């Protein structure tokens, strides 16, 4: 792993001294490799490593740690800061409408139920809204998970568009005193103009909604473009990174935070409705570094 690699890079630097530019450059090559292997975006890596290189060069080698450890600490701390830092406050969970959006297969439907369950445990009365009119059995999927966790699910009754379903769900929620409404939307590609346009319409009709982009943790270099496209169109409130129970390093997280600048609220850690945890920058940084 990166720690071992950096230890061996700096093995020769035994006595006290300064980190020479050459040593730092060698170390930064290893850091670059580790970050690219972790799916961090090519340009994000470039900027990040340049920044670390600057911070590390000429730094006094502390008595208590090896130079390798020192570089690791700089990299780790910079990563944590870039991911939002430990002090980043958790979302309040006070919005009345949540909209879950994202690419096909990222985990929106599953996460809608997870979010609902988590808010229910906090004393709210969520209503899940199934607005995916296209995917075969998408409505059944949300209805099934909803009933498994004891959450009401609003299903379409002849509405022609997803926006109409969402509006009908809102109406129903007011009649039944349910809040918040969690809107599950169909998967769509960020390059699909028609579908992105439809989503922008829904968002414009629900200006007070918290819009969350659900992204698969194994997403590669395209994560930046995806996040940016959704952000430009919708003004996101945050991200949910899913399938972190796998071994994908999750470098896309850095792209989301560093490039788009919105917080990562939650991480999905399994297929069960309970598998939703708050995002922790420290933990993510360690994971990305491998």
């Amino acid at each position, binding site marked *: 792993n990166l720690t071992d690699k950096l230890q061996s890079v700096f093995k020769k630097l035994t006595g006290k001294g300064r980190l020479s530019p050459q040593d730092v450059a060698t170390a930064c090559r290893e850091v670059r490799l580790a970050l690219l292997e972790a799916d961090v975006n090519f340009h994000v890596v470039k900027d990040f490593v340049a920044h670390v290189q600057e911070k590390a060069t000429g730094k006094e080698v502390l008595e208590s740690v090896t130079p390798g450890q020192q570089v690791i600490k700089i990299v780790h701390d910079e990563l944590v800061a870039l991911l939002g830092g430990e002090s980043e406050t958790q979302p309040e969970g006070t919005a009345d409408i949540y909209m879950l959006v994202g*690419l096909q297969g990222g985990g929106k439907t599953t996460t809608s139920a997870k979010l609902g369950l988590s808010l229910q445990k906090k004393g709210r009365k969520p209503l899940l809204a199934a607005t995916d009119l296209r995917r075969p059995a998408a409505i059944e999927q949300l209805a099934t998970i909803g009933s498994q966790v004891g959450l009401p699910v609003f299903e379409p009754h002849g509405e022609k568009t997803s926006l109409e379903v969402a509006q009908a769900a809102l109406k129903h929620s007011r009649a039944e005193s349910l809040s918040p409404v969690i809107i599950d939307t169909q998967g769509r590609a960020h390059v699909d103009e028609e579908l992105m346009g439809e989503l922008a319409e829904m968002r414009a009709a629900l200006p007070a909604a918290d819009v969350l982009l659900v992204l698969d943790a194994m997403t590669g*270099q395209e994560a930046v473009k995806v996040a940016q496209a959704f952000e430009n169109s919708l003004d996101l409130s945050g991200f949910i990174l899913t399938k972190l129970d796998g071994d994908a390093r999750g470098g896309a997280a850095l792209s989301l935070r560093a490039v788009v600048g919105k917080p990562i609220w939650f991480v999905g850690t399994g297929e069960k409705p309970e598998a939703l945890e708050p995002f922790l920058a420290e933990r993510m940084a360690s994971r990305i570094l491998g």
Partner: protein
Amino acid sequence: FGLRRSLDEDFYAELEEALVSSDVSLRTATELAEYLRTEIRRQDIAELEAARDLLKERLVQVLSKEHAALTWPQELPGLYLMVGVNGTGKTTTIAKLACRAMSKGLRPILAAADTFRAAAGEQLEEWGRRLEVQVIKGRPGGDPAAVVFDALQAASARGADLVIADTAGRLHTKRNLMEELNKIGRVSKEKLGRPPEETLLVVDATTGQNALAQTKEFQQVVGLTGIVLTKLDTAAKGGIVITIADETDLPIKCIGTGEQPEDLEDFDPRGFVEAILE
């Protein structure tokens, strides 16, 4: 890439950027750069176009594997087993393969052997209805291997040519789920008296380096015959398959280019490489 006039260090830096940005691993990109440097020197190449063609040919060569075409069954019924991690497009790809089989005059039966995920059976049944193809379903939480077995049984009884079996998405890191898949593979092989005609790993083109680990793990557990690369219509380049091709013998058989049954194409290495390099 390739707006430069000369084959200098900037050329190699841009090449690396183009490849890595397409999810080719840094290691593979570095090897390709090394190959290019050697050949450019050896063939005394000075023109950018010639260097680009050299790279293109190399990539096409890496991606051209044996047995890249779908194997249609000789003995009937045959079996296609679809496997992969969560959400990559397995169930939708089955609809596409069923469509393809019918266009070849074959009669497929679908096996809804994802007995775990909410409405997985219903999703495949809906595809069956749209395509007028029979679907064999198990009960929720039931044994997936039994569903494949029953589907093969039904196919024999009804004179169907091919069973296309869906399995639940599973992360390759989950030991018990991978063992379950191993069992599905063994039961199917025993019932058929031979390995399935195809055991296809469905990989999402938006996936980064993790696709390599997925391929290696699934290959160990259930013996793959090929890869289907989906969602290439979503602008992801899918370059990780170049790394996969470099490190395994697995052919990419088909690509998914949309969400409808007709959105399946045979893998064309040259077309794929041109899209990566543009």
